[in-house]
C-alpha cells in the first residue's frame, strides 16, 4: 500500500544515531588534540591544564564508539524513521525562520527583527488578518523595549531604525 509522501522517513534511526555518534567522536578528537597541546600529565603539584579534558575526551570517544558500533549493528526491525518528511517540514518551518531572525538581529537590531519574526509567523502559519498581525508583533516589541531598555537598562542590539528615531 503506497504511503503518504509526508509519512515517508526523511532519514532513519540508524542514520541519526551514526551521525550523532560521529559528531561526538569529532568533538572528542578536538578535545583530545587541544589537551595534548596543553599538557596532560599529572605533575607534582597536581594535574596539568589538559589532564582532565584529555581523559574526558578519551571517555567520550570510547562511549561514542560503542554507540556507533551498536548503531551499525541495529536490526532492521528497530530501524524505523527518525523523523518523517512531514514532521521534518514542520520542524524546519520554525528552525529556518529562527535562524534568519538571529541573522537579522545582527543587521537591523533585535526589536525590528522581532516584529518581522512574529509577523511572519502569525501571518504565514496562523493566517491572522493583517491588523492583528501588526498589533501583536509591533506591540510585543514595544513592550520588550520598555522592559529591557527603559526599565531594566539592559542594552540589546539595535539597528538603523532606532538610530533614526534617536533611541540609541
Amino acid at each position, binding site marked *: 500500500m503506497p504511503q503518504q509522501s509526508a509519512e515517508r522517513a526523511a532519514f532513519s534511526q540508524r542514520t*541519526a*544515531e551514526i551521525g*550523532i555518534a560521529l559528531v*561526538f567522536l569529532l*568533538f572528542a578528537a*578536538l*578535545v583530545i588534540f*587541544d*589537551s595534548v597541546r*596543553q599538557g596532560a600529565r*599529572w*605533575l*607534582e*603539584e*597536581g*594535574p596539568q*591544564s589538559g589532564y*582532565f*579534558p584529555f581523559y*574526558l*575526551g578519551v*571517555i*567520550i570517544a570510547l*562511549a*561514542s564508539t560503542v*554507540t556507533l558500533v*551498536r548503531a551499525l549493528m541495529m536490526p532492521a526491525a528497530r530501524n524505523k524513521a*527518525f*523523523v518523517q518528511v512531514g*514532521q521534518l517540514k*514542520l*520542524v524546519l*518551518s*520554525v*528552525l529556518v*525562520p*529562527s*535562524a534568519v*531572525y*538571529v541573522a537579522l*538581529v*545582527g543587521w537591523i537590531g*533585535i526589536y525590528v527583527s*522581532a516584529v518581522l*519574526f*512574529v509577523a*511572519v*509567523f*502569525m501571518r504565514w*502559519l*496562523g493566517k*491572522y488578518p493583517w491588523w492583528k498581525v501588526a498589533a501583536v508583533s509591533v506591540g*510585543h516589541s514595544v513592550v*520588550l523595549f520598555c*522592559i*529591557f531598555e527603559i526599565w*531594566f537598562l*539592559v*542594552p*540589546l542590539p539595535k539597528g538603523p531604525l532606532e538610530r533614526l528615531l534617536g533611541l540609541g
Partner: protein
Amino acid sequence: MHGFSVVLTPTNLALMFTGVVLGVVIGVLPGLGGANGVAILLPLTFSMAQTPEGQTSAIILLSCIYWGALFGGAITSILFNIPGEPWSVATTFDGYPLAQKGQAGTALTAAFTSSFVGALVAVILITFIAPVIANFALAFGPPEFFSVYLLTFCAFVGMSKEPPYKTIAAMMTGFALAAVGTDPVTGTLRLTYGFTHLLTGFDFLVAVIGLFGIGEILLTLEEGLEFRGTRAKLNMRVVIETWKELPRYWLTSIRSSVVGCFMGIVPGGATPASFMAYGVARRFSKDGDKFGTGQVEGIVAPETAAHAAGTSALLPMLTLGVPGSPTAAVLLGGLLIWGLQPGPLLFVEQKDFVWGLIASMYLGNIAGLIVVLTCVPLFAAILRIPFSVIAPIIIVICSIGGYTVHNGLFDVWMVVVFGVLGYFFRKLQYPLAPLVLAIVLGDNAEASFRQAMLFSQGNMAIFFETPLVASITALAFFLLFWPLISLGIRKLRGG
C-alpha cells in the same frame, strides 16, 4: 517582634508587593537573572537609603524582588520547559511533563507552595541560629568545596532509563564544555582553538535555554503546530486540590529544605541544591522511577531546596559579609553602599534594620505566595495562546536571554545550535540533565579539586583529612552506590 512593627507600615507593604511583582517578571524572563535585576534596581534605592527607615524600606524592596525571582523562575520552567533561572532547571524535569498532562495549575501550585515552605524553613533557621551556623561556613576550604560538588553529582547521577554509554557520553561532554575557556587555576586558554568568542566558555544559561527550551519547541512541532497541555484547569479550585495532596510529601519537603539550607550556607548555591534534592528524592521515593513523567514530588523537592538555599544564602552574608550566592553578593553591595557593615556588629548596631529584614523575609514570602497563587490560573491560561503567536515570542525572549549573557550574538547562535542538539539528544535518548549539571558544576569542581591538590601536593588523602570533608565525601560515595547497596539488601532479605 519589634522587627514586624518596623515592617508593617503601609509604604513598606506597598514596596513588598511591588518588589514581588517585579521579581516575578525578572524570574520569568531568561536574561534578567535574579542578580541582574537586583543590581540594576540598586541605584533606585540610593535616594531611599538616606535615612535609617529608608534603608529598611530599600532592603525590603530588594529582597522582595529576590523572592519574586525565586518564585518566577518556576513559571516558564513548568509552562514551556524553559528555565527562567538556573535553579529552575530541575523543576522542568517533572513540572513540564505535568503541565503537558493538562495539570499546569497543579504543577504551579506545588512549585510555589514548596518554594514558600523552603524559604520559611530557611528564615526560621536564620532567625534562631544565625551565629552558630555562620561559623560553620568558615570551615570550608577547597577540599570541602570539592566534596560538596562531588556530593551533588553523586546524588543526582544514577538510576536513569537511558542507555549507560549515552549517559556517560552526555555527562563527559558537559564537563568538557565546562572546560572550554580560561583554565580556572592557571589562566591559560583551553579548547578555544583561537575563537575569541570562546574566552568565557559556554555559559550554562545559553546551553539550558537552547537544550531545554528551543529543543522542546522543535520536538513538540513534530506533533503539529500546537503546545500540549492546553487543557489546563483554570480555576482556583486547583490550588485547594493541590494543597490537599501536598502534605503527603512532608518528608521530601523536610529533606529538601535541609539540603537547600546546607547548600545555601556553604556557598554551594541554589542550582546545585535543586539538583541534589531532586536526585535524593528520586532515590528514596517509592515512585522513584516515575520521576520525569510528571510526579508532584519531583517538583516539591527541587523547588523547596532552591528556595531554602536562596534564602539561607543571606545568612553568611549578614553575619560574616560572605555572600552565599551571586544575588546575595549584590545585596551585600547594596548594604555597603548605604554605609552598613555586615558582620556581627550589624546585629548590635543596626538592630532595627536586621530585624526589619528578617521580618520582611517572612512577610515578603507570604506576599509572594499570595501574588503568585492568585495568578496561577492566569499563568496557566498563557498556554492557551495560539502557537503561531506564542512560539515566536518565546523564541525572541530566548534570544534576548542568550544575548544578555555576554552582550554578544555568538551566544544567541549557540542557543540555536544547542536547540538543534537538544532535539537530537532527546530523540536519541541522550540524557540532558547530567550534561547540564556537569556544565554547572564543572569549572568550580575542577578548580576546587586542583586547589586542593596544590595544598596537599598531589595527595588525594586530603579529601579524608578532616571529619567534615571525610563525612561529605563518604556520603557522596554512599549516594552513588546506593542503588547497588539497596539491591544487595533486597537480595539478602529475599534470598
